[in-house]
């Protein structure tokens, strides 16, 4: 018995180097009622690049995971409340608020996050949620555009995302968006910077592995905007892209740039089938 206990202790001591591997088996239910799909079959357009999809939630510690399971614990919900106020408040020369045209966000915005980025026929371009919000602000409200990855914008996209929680991400990749999707795919596999790292190097080839203290996920963006414990604020997908590219010792692209719009479309499509989780909590 003593020997067995000692052996077990020795195993535990030896374990830390290789203890964490792959996603955990936890299930995500928010507020005891929204069942999130955090693991699902990879979409056909991935051509087997990933055997299965996993939400980034599955790679986080139990403590971090718990923060997303109840809206009273989720630090991002403060920003959702702030955005609800902004939603109802007139701004700009037209004297309009979001609510003037879109009414109750809970109804009008349900399902919206799940299909963005998407093609805007009138503009003839792929629009992210952020670009659409700013288009409304500038052209419908006569208000100043928000900073693409600033706090106001992140909060508003959180308010919009929360109306789609639990719905499957389902961005279109064909038709008029196909060229943009192809561009995003090329960026995903390009090894940028002096470290020559592509998105795929870490998030396709090495998810589940530790890179120093970081447990690599698949880099899915179904949880954005994301409250990060690291910087204690809401983070947009483009701000995260920028941070990743910077960390390859590269000259980054800008939030809202055509490159990051294309990358967002492509990365979002890699998560088709996972639940919209935004605003999620990550470390």
């Amino acid at each position, binding site marked *: 018995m003593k020997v067995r206990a000692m052996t077990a202790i020795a195993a535990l001591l030896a374990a830390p180097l290789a203890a964490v591997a792959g996603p955990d088996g936890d299930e995500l239910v928010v507020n005891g009622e929204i069942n999130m799909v955090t693991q699902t079959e990879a979409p056909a357009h991935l051509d087997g690049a990933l055997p299965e999809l996993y939400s980034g939630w599955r790679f986080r510690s139990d403590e971090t995971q718990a923060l997303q399971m109840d809206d009273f614990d989720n630090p991002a919900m403060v920003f959702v409340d702030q955005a609800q106020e902004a939603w109802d408040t007139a701004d700009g020369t037209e004297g309009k608020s979001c609510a003037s045209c879109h009414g109750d966000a809970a109804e009008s915005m349900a399902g919206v996050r799940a299909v963005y980025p998407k093609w805007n026929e009138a503009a003839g371009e792929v629009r992210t949620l952020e670009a659409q919000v700013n288009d409304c602000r500038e052209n419908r409200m006569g208000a100043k555009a928000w900073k693409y990855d600033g706090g106001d914008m992140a909060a508003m996209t959180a308010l919009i995302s929360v109306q789609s929680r639990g719905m499957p991400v389902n961005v279109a990749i064909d038709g008029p968006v196909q060229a943009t999707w192809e561009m995003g795919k090329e960026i995903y596999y390009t090894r940028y910077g*002096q470290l*020559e790292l592509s998105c795929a190097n870490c998030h396709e080839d090495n998810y589940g*592995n530790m890179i120093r203290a970081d447990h690599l996920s698949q880099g899915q963006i179904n949880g954005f905007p994301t409250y990060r414990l690291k910087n204690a604020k809401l983070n947009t997908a483009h701000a995260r892209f920028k941070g990743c*590219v910077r960390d390859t010792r590269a*000259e980054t692209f800008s939030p809202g740039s055509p490159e990051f719009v294309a990358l967002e479309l492509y990365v979002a499509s890699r998560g088709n089938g996972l639940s919209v989780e935004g605003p999620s909590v990550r470390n």
Partner: protein
Amino acid sequence: MKTTILTLAAALIGGAAWAGETAPGDVVYADGAVEASLTGTPGDAANGAMVVGSKKHGNCVACHQVSALADVPFQGEIGPALDGAGSRWSEAELRGLVANAKLTFEGSMMPSFYRVDGYVRPGNAYTGKAPDGPLTPLLSAQEIEDVVAFLATLKDE
């Protein structure tokens, strides 16, 4: 007068050390291996261990486990463990692997630590901005030699 001479001498020694280094573009690889020392100065294994373990230097442990550096926390699991590297590889092979592993393993994820060109959108270190001059290699020539000296001590038991 004496001070001036000393300063001059110091400058000469500094300059000579630089002149004796092989520049990144002049390194001769044979099947990925680099026979000649990059500096002519024997590597310092202790400093090499520091470079391998330090986030501010080589940060090799971000991806590789090294049992000999058990006191360095959070060792990664991206690349193979470096234990026994000194038995698996010759000094020349180790030098080539550290300087530019892609010439030994085509397509390797491992960054090239002694190379300054051929990059896509290289930046100014970790600022995210464009470089404001020529790139410097990730490790200096002597740091490469020091890391090689350290790796050579990692023998199979």
